[in-house]
């Protein structure tokens, strides 16, 4: 049996609830703005989720944050692998709480990040992007295309799935005159351009401390 619909009519949290309470073995496909995610259910739980570049609980959270899109429920489809162990209701509640907190904070955080990080000697430019590559706050060199940088962030996440991890701490590019740091922070990607005078480990420690303080 296949059921299709719109997330505006039936929220994903409700779809999860129905499938878990009824102990369905099912696959739910969610499509929104060129992104496609999958949720698998068995024994009254969510057992696996994918929304590239995320897998597991993070993928569930990302899917729950999608405001619009379409869904398709296919009964009897087994999960290809098991990536989720926590009870479904904890995952949904935690995710919704995190999404809510993020929405509340999202307006002021980029400004704080830029104000605090730009004090570091050697930092030239800072930009905060959303995952699609839109510049939310800050400024980057003209020749850097923000969508290209988000693409690089996405590819890094994809590379890391080969290592069975999705949590990257940071990445940086280097040429003969600068570093370009790519750091995922909450629902954004922070891009920092520095000169080569900085010590990477010291700088990263400083950035971590600042970001920890903000969150």
């Amino acid at each position, binding site marked *: 049996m296949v059921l299709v619909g719109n997330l505006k009519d039936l929220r994903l949290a409700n779809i999860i609830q129905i499938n878990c309470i009824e102990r369905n073995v099912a696959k739910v496909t969610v499509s929104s*703005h*060129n*992104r*496609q995610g999958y949720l698998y259910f068995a024994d009254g739980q969510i057992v696996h989720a994918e929304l*590239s570049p995320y897998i597991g609980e993070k993928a569930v959270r990302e899917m729950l944050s999608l405001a619009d899109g379409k869904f398709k429920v296919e009964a009897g489809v087994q999960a290809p692998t098991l990536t989720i162990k926590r009870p479904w209701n904890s995952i949904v509640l935690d995710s919704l709480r995190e999404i809510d907190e993020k929405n509340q904070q999202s307006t002021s955080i980029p400004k704080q990040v830029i104000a605090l990080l730009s004090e570091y000697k050697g930092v030239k430019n800072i930009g905060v992007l959303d995952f*699609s*590559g839109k510049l939310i706050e800050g400024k980057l060199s003209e*020749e*850097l*295309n923000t*969508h*290209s940088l*988000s*693409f*690089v962030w*996405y*590819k*890094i996440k*994809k*590379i*890391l799935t*080969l*290592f069975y*991890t999705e*949590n*990257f*701490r*940071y*990445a*940086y*590019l*280097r*040429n*003969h005159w*600068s570093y*370009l740091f790519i750091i995922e922070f909450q629902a954004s990607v922070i891009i920092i351009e520095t000169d080569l005078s900085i010590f*990477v480990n010291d700088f*990263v420690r400083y950035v971590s401390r600042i970001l920890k303080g903000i969150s």
Partner: protein
Amino acid sequence: MIKEFFKDLTQLDGVEGIALISKDNRMIDSWEAPNFDPKIFNEIGINYYQIFGVLEKSERDYHELVIQHEKGQIYTRQFQELFLLVIARMKVDTAFIRLSVNVVVPDLVHSKKLQKILKKMPREGRNYLTRNYLDETEQAYFKKIKLT
């Protein structure tokens, strides 16, 4: 070839794998520590081709990408015809990897052995920046980047 040129790195505790991959996504040579899954190298090359391919448009000449994640680090260096990948645990100092690579690379790139291998490799001239090699999300990025 890796054992010959990167002996220091292969003997360093914490280095798990090293690979030389041509920009045609063909494995030139690889070395792995006993517990490392070599299949990773087969799937990883195309991603780097795409990353550096996109960045090339910025004319920033980025030649090095270091990814630090919760289980370690992936150091990548781009050369004219190939990528060098070093996969290591967190405890390995990235500066040491960079230094080892800097010392060895001039000899490696100009070595007759490497040139011979590259010459023998079939060149299909594939462009991995086209739709066939991109997932839907990547295609969406490309529409905004305006590469396709």
